[in-house]
């Protein structure tokens, strides 16, 4: 496990000599982009309330993804974080994701979209393989070295740098910038919003009945008049 941790850390962050440079790059990137119009929702199309699950990458956690979660909520989605302090081994996230997924999907009555970073993509694909009825799409921001198979019926969208493996199955969108800062990279967020907007709503089976006009009465507490005007 320690070997795996070291290998993943070196893969993502390079040798320790590079870390001061990476830290500087991160700070400079945040300072440069903090006033970017994307963060104010400019030129971002509004969402359809999809349930989203956010899976952090290597050595990241809920805290890292708070800005992304706030931004996604502001542009019309329903993001949920996994209660992960730090992801130091993606296999340990499976349980959290598997526990959160049914609740998130059933509360909204739709299949969820998992947004995963780096090694978190492996977690997303493993759990999606078990819960195919609850996941419509996985959006990968950055990719790990090895990927589990893409589950049947689940679409994979990949956002990342040019060095992405070209043989990855799924839609590939290239953005420039540091892979470990994709969650606050304005271009990546723009692309993410475009992907989310294109993903059609997939109702859970029990909610398919709602599509026809003469369906049964509503039962879910969430499927209620939220706002009436």
């Amino acid at each position, binding site marked *: 496990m320690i070997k795996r941790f070291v290998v993943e850390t070196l893969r993502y962050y390079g040798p320790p000599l590079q870390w001061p440079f990476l830290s500087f790059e991160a700070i400079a990137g945040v300072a440069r982009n903090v006033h970017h119009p994307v963060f104010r929702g400019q030129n971002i*199309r*509004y*969402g*359809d*309330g999809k349930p989203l699950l956010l899976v952090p990458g290597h050595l990241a956690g809920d805290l890292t993804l708070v800005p992304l979660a706030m931004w996604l909520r502001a542009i*019309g989605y329903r993001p949920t974080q996994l209660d992960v302090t730090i992801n130091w081994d993606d296999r340990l996230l499976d349980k959290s994701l598997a526990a959160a997924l049914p609740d998130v999907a059933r*509360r*909204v*009555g*739709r299949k969820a979209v998992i947004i995963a970073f780096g090694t978190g993509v492996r977690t997303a694909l493993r759990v999606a393989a078990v819960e195919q009825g609850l996941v419509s799409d996985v959006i990968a921001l950055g990719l790990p070295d090895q990927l589990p198979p893409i589950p049947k019926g689940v679409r994979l969208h990949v956002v990342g740098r040019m060095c992405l493996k070209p043989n990855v199955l799924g839609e590939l969108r290239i953005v420039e910038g540091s892979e470990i800062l994709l969650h606050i990279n304005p271009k990546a967020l723009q692309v993410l919003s475009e992907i989310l907007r294109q993903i*059609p*709503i*997939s*109702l859970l089976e029990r*909610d398919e009945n*709602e*599509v*026809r*006009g*003469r*369906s049964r*009465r*509503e039962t*879910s*507490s*969430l*499927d*209620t*008049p*939220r*706002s*009436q*005007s």
Partner: protein
Amino acid sequence: MMTQRASVNGASIAFDVRGSGPPLVLIMGYRLNSSAWPVEFVEGLAERFTLVLFDNRGTGLSDKPTSGYALSNMAGDVLGLMDHLGIAQSNVFGYSMGGAIAQELVCRHPKRVSSLVLFATLCGGPAAAYASPTVMRVMHNLEGMTPAEAARQIWTVTYESGYLAANRDKIERQMQLEIENPTPLHAADLQFQALVDFDSSKALPGVRARTLVVTGDRDELIPPRNSEAIAGLIPGAHLIVLRGRGHRAIWEAPAQCMALVAGFLDGREDFDDAAKGNAIRMAL
């Protein structure tokens, strides 16, 4: 309760036709279905007009598909319903989101609209003034609530506060009507998304239909500035501001609103007298 159905524009739309006289299509707002129209308002109009009442896609007894909620497409539903009923041209009344659908209809099919009433609505784009973040939080933070709990929370921003305090029982009865056929979450989300995407500001100067724009001066959800913007964009539009009324002005003062709308559609110049001094006719 809607009694008939028509397959139009790829969806089954529930509708009803009442009254007699020139046709008047009523288009309901976000998330509500046609059973929400105040009885006094509808019955009063039905004495002078042939009313076409229908459930927007996603609401009431109409289909609730997972696509097709762009307001231009929902205007296509209205057009399809008019075709189905053999109505070549009609008066059109749109409330809130229904007003946005009415704008799409008149901009895309100007010959099909004889007169237009836009009530408590907006035109989107740069001219739009959206609700404050506090109001939006009230509208959005409803997860886990029952339909009744959610509706009670929403009251606080849709009804005028004084009216709400004095008429809780009446509003409660109205709410029970409205939640009988609740709108599923996916339909509400897609309607909201369509409303955010909506922008008719560039097309409105081309509207030639006789137009009345009405708003309550205490509308917190769609601030009155939106109606001022619409009336400023449509040539010759009349703007009426109802004093002391909120977003739900039609429910707060159904008789006054009915008289105002009927007077305007009848072509009377003094149509705002119907509001008995509670309406301010704004000079544009």
